[in-house]
């Protein structure tokens, strides 16, 4: 049982603050680190991997700092996001080299077990340079598992995987979590995280935005006010009908755009009522488009929540 403690950790690069005063504990089970691209997920994972010193605060494995403590790596398995991985070796040689570098008593057996776990035994004799992205990802995974670590850190592990590989990796990570290992993976895709993680930490713009199980995060994300851009045959008549309904909290008539900007607070009711109200007042809807559905806006809502 190993727990990662991140305590008031910040990391800045010159004037840019990548991670801003984050405190969280990552315990056994599968934790998803969710956030848009550039939110500081990689920086945080690099600090947990001992590749970056926190500029302030601390990052420890149980109570031992990770930065500059090479012994920590006996307990940490790492799946980096970058692709560089000794392409001139075969997958088997690569995993074996990792086992040897860990100083394992029987590196050959450990490498074989790890390759079996990720189902790469058949392709183990091929050079890594001939692998597909998914195969590379699985060999990286094998290299991280070769010493049976109690902590597994994965930076965007599902990038570039096809659905079958994704399912397989998810199954594997779930199993590791069930075995009592501490598994942390980062992703910018909510669906990925909620399928797999029992616990979710949300990072936005370097800050810790939310924490909890996926139901809580999902609710936070769908319960926020939604904004829509609507064009119709009679915008003012439609606006009048909409503002009376409790599903909306504000309507702006944008004359330049020739459109209505509607803020909906009760998302399910609004989507059901809009066509009905339009029909009742005899207005035809020409455009209904969500104006802030980008992931970034969902996340920035979470930060302010």
């Amino acid at each position, binding site marked *: 049982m190993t727990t990662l403690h991140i305590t008031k950790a910040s990391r800045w690069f010159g004037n840019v603050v990548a991670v801003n005063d984050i405190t969280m504990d990552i315990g056994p089970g599968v934790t998803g680190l969710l956030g848009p691209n550039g939110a500081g997920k990689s*920086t945080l994972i690099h600090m947990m991997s001992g*590749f970056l*010193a926190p500029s302030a605060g601390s990052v420890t494995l149980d109570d031992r700092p990770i930065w500059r403590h090479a012994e920590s790596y006996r307990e*940490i398995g790492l799946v980096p996001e*970058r*692709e*560089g991985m000794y392409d*001139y070796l075969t997958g088997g040689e690569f995993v074996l080299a990792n086992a*040897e*570098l860990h100083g394992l008593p029987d590196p050959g057996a450990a490498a074989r077990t790890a390759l079996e776990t990720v189902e790469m035994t058949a392709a183990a004799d091929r050079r890594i340079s001939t692998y597909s992205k998914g195969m590379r990802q699985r060999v990286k995974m094998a290299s991280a598992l070769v010493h049976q670590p109690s902590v597994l850190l994965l930076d965007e592990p599902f990038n570039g995987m096809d659905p079958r590989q994704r399912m397989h990796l998810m199954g594997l990570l779930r199993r590791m979590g069930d075995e009592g290992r501490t598994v942390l993976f980062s992703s910018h895709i909510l669906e990925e995280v909620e399928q797999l993680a029992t616990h979710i930490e949300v990072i936005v713009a370097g800050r810790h935005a939310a924490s909890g199980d996926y139901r809580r995060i999902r609710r936070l994300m769908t319960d926020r006010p939604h904004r829509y851009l609507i064009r119709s045959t009679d915008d003012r008549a439609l606006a009048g009908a909409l503002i009376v309904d409790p599903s909306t909290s504000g309507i702006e008539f944008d004359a330049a755009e020739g459109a209505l900007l509607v803020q909906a607070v009760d998302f399910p009711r609004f989507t059901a009522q809009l066509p009905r109200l339009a029909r009742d007042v005899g207005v035809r809807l020409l455009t209904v488009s969500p104006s802030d559905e980008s992931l970034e806006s969902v996340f920035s809502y979470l930060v302010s929540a």
Partner: protein
Amino acid sequence: MYNDTVARLTYRALLGRRRVLILLTLPVLLLIIAVAVRSFSGADDRAATDVLGSFALASMVPLIGVIAGTGAIAPEIDDGSIVYLLSKPLPRRTIITTKLLVAISVTIVFTTIPMLVAGYILNGNSQGIAGAFTVAAAVASIAYSAVFLLLGTVSRNAVVFGLVYALIWESLFGNLVPGARTLSIQQWALALAESTAGSGADITSDVALPAAVILLVAATGLGTWYAIRRLTVLTVAHDD
């Protein structure tokens, strides 16, 4: 101090097909020149010193040193694969010292053997010229490897800086500005060659032997020490 696996990976990276061809180019060129000079002007001490000194020691050795020294670590830092070495319970000092030993051995093999063979072709080791330049190539290999390995941990453009040092500083500046020669691995190595060769050989260095030995040891030691420091605090490039 030494890790077999790190060494194996480094050898495979350095002696991969393309790189080994680059490493072989200059030694082959040296042998061709040696054969040509010998067949045109016969065995001549003066010609031997010229070829071994101004081409082999001044250009071939530093260039091979650049390829082996930077190639032992810079590509891994560049593509991020160094992560697989760093995320192991392995002192970073061991990674550097192992890679240095590999770089030194590769540089020595690819410089001393052609140097000795070329020397024998040129004048049959008369005045001990071939032997003297072989010793110079060996010590220069050690110092170049350490300096260029350090460069590989410091800069993403290690090869460029290495070439600038080897070609512009050592060759060009060294010829134009006498002072620059004092700070030149080539001159330090020449001092050793001067003291090893027979009295009739016309090998001269601008640096006295004791100073040369001290500077060689200092450059190698400091280069290694600082490379270890660099790797200890190496932070992985952030893409965020």
